[in-house]
């Protein structure tokens, strides 16, 4: 184990696992409680178009993904508010358009097609120091944006209309939230990938909610659960030589279903 920790790639992966757990705990709790899971999924898949555009234009693909994710996030919000269109419809539209653009850009990119699997399913062991800095800065931004206005976020998530009635300008919260969701998803792409990022945003908060009825505690507990998922998944991936994104999500899913079963069984035995 000591030997394992001496590898730089493993040290980076562990730091990335801890930081992304904090991100997924806070943003995941907000996404779950604000019923934005499907919208977030749409944003994640739209970023695939940006990654393809990044390859096509010869820039860092994740930067392309970031622009697409933020654009999709704010665009979806704007379209929904101005047309009253169904969120599911907008999500599907962005989702498929993003994926189609990604495939188109890759096809148009000269030379051998790049390996897109790591963006779809992630590879935490390939996280380098520079990327760690990006995750670190984003974690700090999310912590400041949510904790400094925590009481307002609580009301915004619980009863947005009441916040409007008492005169709080919730438009700012809408915009900040959509940008933070886009940023979080792009960061998660490198760690668990586009397809699996939603699981990391939803499983830890869903599990934490079984044990607490306070928003702050849900975020804290979710953070701890996320760390267990990512670190355990990472170790399983290393020792069994299987893809890290898949092992993190499968370990998380197994833990979630076990917890649900134990909770149900203990509820039955109490009645």
């Amino acid at each position, binding site marked *: 184990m000591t030997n394992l920790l001496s590898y730089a790639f493993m040290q980076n992966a562990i730091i990335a696992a801890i930081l992304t757990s904090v991100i997924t705990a806070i943003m995941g709790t907000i996404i779950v*409680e604000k019923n934005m899971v499907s919208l977030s999924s749409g944003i994640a898949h739209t970023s695939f178009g940006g990654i393809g555009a990044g390859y096509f234009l010869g820039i860092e693909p994740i930067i392309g993904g970031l622009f697409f994710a933020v654009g999709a996030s704010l665009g979806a919000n704007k379209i929904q508010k101005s047309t009253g269109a169904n969120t599911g419809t907008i999500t599907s539209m962005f989702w498929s358009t993003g994926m189609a653009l990604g495939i188109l850009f890759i096809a148009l990119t000269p030379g051998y097609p790049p390996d897109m699997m790591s963006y779809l399913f992630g590879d935490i062991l390939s996280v380098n120091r520079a990327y760690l800095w990006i995750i670190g800065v984003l974690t700090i931004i999310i912590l400041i944006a949510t904790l*400094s*206005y925590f*009481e*307002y976020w*609580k*009301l915004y*998530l*619980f*009863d947005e*209309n*009441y*916040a*409007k*009635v*008492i*005169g*709080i*300008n919730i438009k*700012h919260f809408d915009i900040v939230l959509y940008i933070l969701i886009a940023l979080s998803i792009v960061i998660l792409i490198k760690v668990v990938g586009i397809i699996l990022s939603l699981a990391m945003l939803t499983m830890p908060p869903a599990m934490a*909610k079984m044990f*607490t*009825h*306070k*928003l702050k*505690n*849900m975020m804290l507990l979710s953070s701890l659960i996320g760390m267990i998922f990512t670190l355990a998944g990472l170790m399983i991936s290393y020792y069994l030589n299987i893809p890290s994104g898949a092992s993190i999500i499968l370990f998380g899913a197994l833990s979630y279903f076990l917890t649900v079963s134990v909770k149900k069984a203990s509820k039955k035995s109490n009645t």
Partner: protein
Amino acid sequence: MNVIQIQNLHVNYGKIQALDNVNFNIKQGEFLGIIGPNGGGKTTLIKTILGMIEPSKGGVTTHEDTVIGYVPQLTTFDRKFPITVGEVIKTGHLPKRVMPFYKYSKEANQHVLAVMEQLDIAELFDRQIGQLSGGQMQKVLIARSLMNHPNVLILDEPTAGVDEDSRAHIFKMLQQLNTSITIIIISHNITALSPYLDRIIYINKQAHVHSDNHPTSGDVMEGDMCPIDWFIQGEKITKNEAYQAHDQKQKMASGVRK
């Protein structure tokens, strides 16, 4: 003194006319009921009074001293949301100018406890909202609305999702609050509500009913309906005809839902 004046109010949603030339005043100390069929414009009217909807024409004028408290419908809440009763009520104290690292003052916390005592829900402070009955949740929302010391309280369907005993309890509680606060209630349940009301406004898009007679307390007999003039589509009708029409519409609406 009029706390709220509604003059020549028109609200359109695109081509759909939700309110058409609504005119009435709400007097200080009044206990007012707003009734009408689904889609008749009740909620639009309330949202316009609260400033959530811009009128297409005309408008709502509030007296300079008017502070409005609002109690939304119970059914609009996610009761599984991770929040306790105490936390819900405290949010009523949040300043509208967003302040970083805002902490509730000692006075705010004391005010929360005092109102909870007054409404007989002090023991629910740490309870998660999903563990409350409909009646208890309604009281929690009323407590939250009282945090900004309103002199007008607007309640949207306070009887929906509440059992009969709790309903009567809530109406009596509102009657007590009415000694210092003007109360405006939107409700389908006119029969249960009418003994407590000074006046009823019937809203059905183009048909607006109002009574200009503000009755004294002696005019409202226990168990009796309050005095009111009824109009539908501009034609005056009797009270019983209006009630029958209203109940018939409710029955039809619930029949369609089934």
